[in-house]
């Protein structure tokens, strides 16, 4: 990244194009590698980053210049692919959606909770996707396809807009204390996936999904702690979606 060059006069609002001076960031990272030892441990790294760099850039700095054995998942680096969910200072975040200036001079990074840790920041995602797959996460339309699109009014389309934004990063599910304690609970992300279809005017399987969610592994496990809503990097109103489904089950209305 270019440092500011004092010789070139710029507009008064340089903030938009300049990154300022590098700052120091002390990263405390929870490590785990069953190939070399049984228990987890903490490592600390000191890196120099620009304030607008992402925490992911800082983790790359560690991996590429300090310790190549650090294992993490990441891909798009701008909060769409959902690969890099980690716990940052106790909160579930996407590492690419946290800026260094937010957490400097020090921060703690751990794997997300409630899923088995495989190595360092990498957890086993299979139980999470099992929950997702259990709620029939696909449109079940009426028989017979029209030649063109199925009509849907903008209002009907808007009804389920919020829950279409989910990127399956698991920030919500792994912030949920019920999920931590109960392996059977499908978790908030699966409920969001169900919500997306139940309130889609084109779908005909709402009753099936509501039945799945009314089981003991479903929505009534939720104790409304709002951790999921706070954790969602897509600003989905997760708890609201869960509450809507509880009401739909209780009053048979959707």
């Amino acid at each position: 990244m270019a440092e500011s060059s004092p010789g070139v006069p710029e507009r008064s609002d340089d903030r938009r194009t300049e990154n300022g001076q590098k700052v120091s960031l002390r990263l405390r990272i929870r490590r785990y590698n069953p190939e070399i030892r049984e228990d987890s441990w903490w490592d600390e790294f000191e890196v120099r980053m620009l304030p607008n760099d992402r925490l992911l850039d800082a983790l790359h700095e560690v991996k590429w210049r300090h310790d190549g054995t650090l294992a993490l998942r990441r891909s798009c680096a701008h909060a769409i692919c959902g690969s890099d969910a980690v716990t940052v200072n106790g909160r579930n975040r996407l590492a690419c959606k946290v800026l260094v200036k937010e957490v400097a001079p020090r921060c703690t990074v751990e794997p997300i909770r409630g899923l088995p840790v495989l190595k360092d920041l990498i957890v086993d995602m299979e139980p999470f996707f099992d929950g997702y797959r259990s709620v029939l996460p696909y449109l079940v339309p009426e028989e017979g396809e029209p030649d063109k699109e199925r009509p849907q009014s903008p209002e009907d389309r808007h009804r389920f807009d919020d829950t279409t934004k989910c990127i399956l990063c698991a920030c919500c599910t792994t912030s949920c204390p019920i999920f931590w304690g109960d392996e059977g609970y499908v978790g908030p992300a699966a409920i969001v996936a169900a919500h997306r279809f139940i309130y889609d005017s084109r779908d005909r399987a709402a009753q099936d999904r509501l039945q799945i969610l009314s089981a003991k592994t479903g929505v009534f496990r939720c104790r409304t702690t709002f951790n999921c809503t706070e954790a969602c990097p897509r600003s989905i109103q997760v708890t609201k979606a869960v509450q809507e489904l509880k009401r739909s089950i209780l009053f048979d209305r959707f």
Partner: protein
Amino acid sequence: MAGGLVTTVHTYDAVIVGAGGAGLRAAIEASDRVRTAVISKLYPTRSHTGTAQGGVCAALANVEEDYPEWHAFDTVKGGDYLVDQPEAAVMCEEAPRDIYELEHWGLPFNRTPDGKIDQRRFGGHTRNHGEAPVKRACYAADRTGHMILQTLYQQCVKRNVRFFNEFYVLDLLMNEGRAAGVVAYELATGELHVFRAKSVMFATGGSGRMFKVSSNAHTLTGDAPAIAYRHGIPLEDMEFFQFHPTGVYKMGILLSEAVRGEGGILLNSEEERFMERYAPTVKDLAPRDLISRAIFQEIKEGRGIGPGRDGVWLDVRHLPREVIEEKLPDVTEFARLYLSVEPTTELVPIQPTAHYAMGGIPTDVDGLCVTGPDSVAVPGLYSAGECACVSVHGANRLGTNSLLDIVVFGRRGGKHMAEWSRTVDLPPLPDDPEGFTRGLVDPILARTEGVPPVEIRDRLQETMYDLAFVVRSAEGLTKMKGILDELKRQYEQVVIQDKGRMYNTDLMEAVELGFLLDNAEPLVVAALAREESRGGHYREDFPNRNDENWLKHSLAYRDEDGSVRLEWKPVKLGPYVPMERKY
């Protein structure tokens, strides 16, 4: 055995490598017909299709008069006449069918007041052969790619498609000129897996990570083109890379063309709307190559912004707030989060970013790999999406046509590979099928001193950005070729710290770097050979298009000694006679 580990052998009819839009669309088609496996180095929903924002074009005529033929014309002209015209006609004619299919599968498109799929403007898409911009892009806010990826994955879940997630394919198996399977490295365990198959499809996406400023994910490292190239399969039109005009300043994250489709404009340091001078008819909705070059011209003439005077402004302050918040929510958030800029009241700094490879593994309209000037088929080998070259994008892809490409040619390829697989026997495996892969991985794991990948990768990305980006020259490309020779030598000594088996992402990144180098070299050699300017390939020493000598596709082969050998293949022409490209 690699590192003392056993190799597992799997047998399928069809194996698809990559689980983005093209791979998933092919999987839906193939898994209904034959035993199919999808192998991806990521979880499918992490694929880069999900980051596509603005829309997917089809002449539905839901909002304005429109015809597939107008779409085909725009595609050919947008591609600076290097497009194979019959292939583009197929894509544009079948586009409405594929959009309706996505809708039937649940894709939540934005709607018109009367409940149809809504459509909006996009760069280079016009009514009646260039008269004015047309509303052709079907969209779901600025999350169209996300919705396509989710919808296709949902359909795969419904069909119980067999996925091998976080399996990294490192080699293609061939038997007497026919595809026989692939070899994959399982990231969780470090084990090798041989997948025997009657047909193989490569759908691994782009290679933008060879440039310092790119919209591409870290994982877009040209894996399939490099693997094919190492097996003597040529790469077509590698010199044509799209530099999207509106990347987030210094970061490269894409700010969708939909911003300009909805009325956003570009301003230089004097806050002049400079595109009025370069494209008087469509202005800020000119194709991406023209706008990126215009930005570089403004920068060259001293009207750039930022400390390096190397960007321009994107202005949406005049747009209604509800358009910004409702139709461009994610883009707005990128500006707020990564630039600390409030786009409703402030100008947003942008610069061109490496976005899309027009070139790749040559295929026909059924995704079947074809080699040489006479397009000889490689039985059983398929490719679709960004890593393939049909060629429907020619020298410059129009916005939205990539999402269209993946659904049309993913479907066609998946169908063809499945039907073909039903008619043939399983080819025998070559001797020592995983030998090549061991030869790739074991030396990297064994080496204790040498050059770390980050040193080679940083130099590759910086020099490709300086010498093979929007503006190129013989001098710069020759220098780049020399640098690549040096980097390839250094790569022979690449050393990593992680020697373990589980989730060795250090090893994975080192392999990815090798693949990137094998994408960069054919790009640079073909760019040096092509002494003209066309679409995304601009040579300041040959600033004009030259149809007499260069209306032809390049095919880059790797020779036995490792050097690049070029052949040339005629462009398939059609109803549209090449003419000067004005907008």
